[in-house]
């Protein structure tokens, strides 16, 4: 549905993107992760035609953004971290103006979307009186009004309270489930990305350093948190079973190894087993490993 192909971009001679490619499938929620300055926003800018790439192209449903931006963006809605509406106008007027750029304003459709995002009571108030959460709801309304097939989310939950974040997440997941919407999700909130995304790409210094499915994170080598004594003897036994010592208190075992058998062997050799529990490898662990080359310190 959305294909970024070999994107390169330099700002003042400094590379912002170098050969970044990704493919967001129809109905998929795809996360774009990375530090500040990793190239996430530049990628999003190129997708929306705000930034011209030095090389490469983006196609949305087969239409090139570079060659035919207007046509390509007809099926796209976007939400930004701090959506800058016209403060001196009402939410309703903002929607009218923004929709005039998307082929026209339909007040009936707008009413339905506003009701869906829960902004009916305040839509005729000036935007300057809105809270951050209300602005995000209005941002969602403006993004959904053109009935997009692709939704681009740039740090949409930043600054929201936990309740707002959950509401937003559920809303997006519903959109995907009900309408099969394709979503590109750019966020720093790794837990959110993990809860929402099917696949993720990690960018570092303008390069894509990882792409994979979120569920696939658990398919890697099983990791266990252990408290064993004496530690040296335990390490020898773990190694002889094909395992690896990651840190003091953390080991990994090969897929074939049965943890129960290892625990039994440890006990049998007189090693005290105070703790032996599997560690769920989070996206944060993976992120930290990739970006820092080391596991997250927890």
């Amino acid at each position, binding site marked *: 549905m959305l294909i970024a192909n070999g994107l390169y971009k330099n700002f003042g001679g400094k590379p912002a993107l170098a050969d970044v490619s990704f493919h967001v499938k129809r109905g998929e929620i795809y996360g774009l992760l990375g530090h500040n300055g990793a190239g996430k926003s*530049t990628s999003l*800018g190129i997708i929306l035609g705000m930034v011209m790439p030095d090389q490469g192209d983006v196609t949305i449903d087969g239409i090139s953004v570079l060659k035919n931006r207007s046509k390509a963006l007809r099926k796209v809605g976007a939400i930004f971290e701090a959506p800058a509406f016209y403060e001196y106008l009402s939410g309703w007027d903002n929607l009218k103006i923004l929709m005039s750029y998307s082929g026209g304003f339909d007040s009936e459709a707008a009413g339905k979307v506003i009701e869906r995002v829960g902004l009916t009571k305040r839509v005729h108030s000036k935007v300057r009186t809105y809270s951050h959460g209300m602005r995000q709801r209005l941002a969602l309304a403006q993004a959904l009004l053109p009935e997009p097939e692709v939704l681009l989310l740039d740090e949409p939950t930043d600054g929201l309270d936990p309740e707002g974040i959950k509401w937003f997440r559920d809303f997006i997941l519903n959109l995907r489930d009900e309408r099969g919407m394709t979503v590109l999700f750019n966020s720093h909130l790794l837990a959110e990305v993990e809860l929402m995304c099917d696949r993720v790409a990690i960018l570092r210094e303008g390069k894509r350093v990882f792409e994979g499915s979120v569920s696939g994170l658990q398919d890697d080598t099983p990791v266990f948190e252990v408290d064993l004594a004496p530690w040296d003897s335990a390490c020898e036994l773990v190694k002889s079973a094909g395992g690896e010592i990651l840190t003091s208190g953390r080991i990994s075992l090969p897929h074939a190894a049965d943890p129960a058998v290892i625990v039994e062997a440890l006990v049998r050799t007189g090693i005290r087993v105070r703790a032996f529990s599997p560690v769920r490898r989070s996206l944060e662990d993976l992120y930290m490993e990739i970006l820092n080359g080391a596991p997250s310190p927890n």
Partner: protein
Amino acid sequence: MLFFQQLRGELRKLFARPRTWMGYGAFIAMEAVILAVYKLERSQRYMKGMLERNGLEFGTYYSSLTITFTIMLLSMFLLGSIYFALVAGDIVAKENEDGNLRLVFARPISRLRLLLIKYTAVSLYTFSFVFFVGVSGYAMAVAAVGWEGGLFVMEPKMKVFAAYPEWWDGASRLAMAAGGIGLSMITLSSIAFMFSCFKIKPAAATIITLTILFVDMILQGFPFFKPYESYFITWRMSAWVFMLEQNISWPKIIESYAFLLGLNISLFTLGWLSFQTRDFKT
């Protein structure tokens, strides 16, 4: 049809901003001051002397039309230019500064079309504002001296001197001249608009525009530049006064407005080229 919907939205934004209305308030105040000066006995005496020296009757030409002409002559370049530069300098640069353009760029609209909408809105604002000044100035003058009387025109810089004893002749000429001022002022807005399309702050766009205008006016006043006065923007912008000449010289007027039209197109194109090739980073 969609263009008009987009234009309506642009005008809605323009007129919802307090600074757009500042000009209206300032002009009403300025008109009141000019009227108050006109009502002073000393200025009436001065005007009477000037009219009688030219063989004209004070009773006929001390009128609402003459006062309206004076208001438009005095206020447009000095005060009007500030507000036109302010509004046109803001129209793109302010939206970029505030981040509104990000939301607009998420829409399937081309940059050229967006600029055309904004430029049309600014031009309409400029043109209609001139008529507002004319109509409000006339209404206030009528309240002060009555509606009757002719029109007396004296503009030494452009060497225009005319007198219309009949109200209808004077009013129709003044209305035509107001249209000319409106067209002239679009050039000023075009300069500010072009700078607004550049990667600069809105205030910078306004200040640079006013600088260009005032430098142009000052240089034009130097005797050395007298043979070249027709190359100055402000001289061309003053061509509206020719519409008040007893015998209108259309070739002279058309030449000036063709010059301004060409300039406007060039300014828009330069602004568009800058806007089109810029990256708008999120």
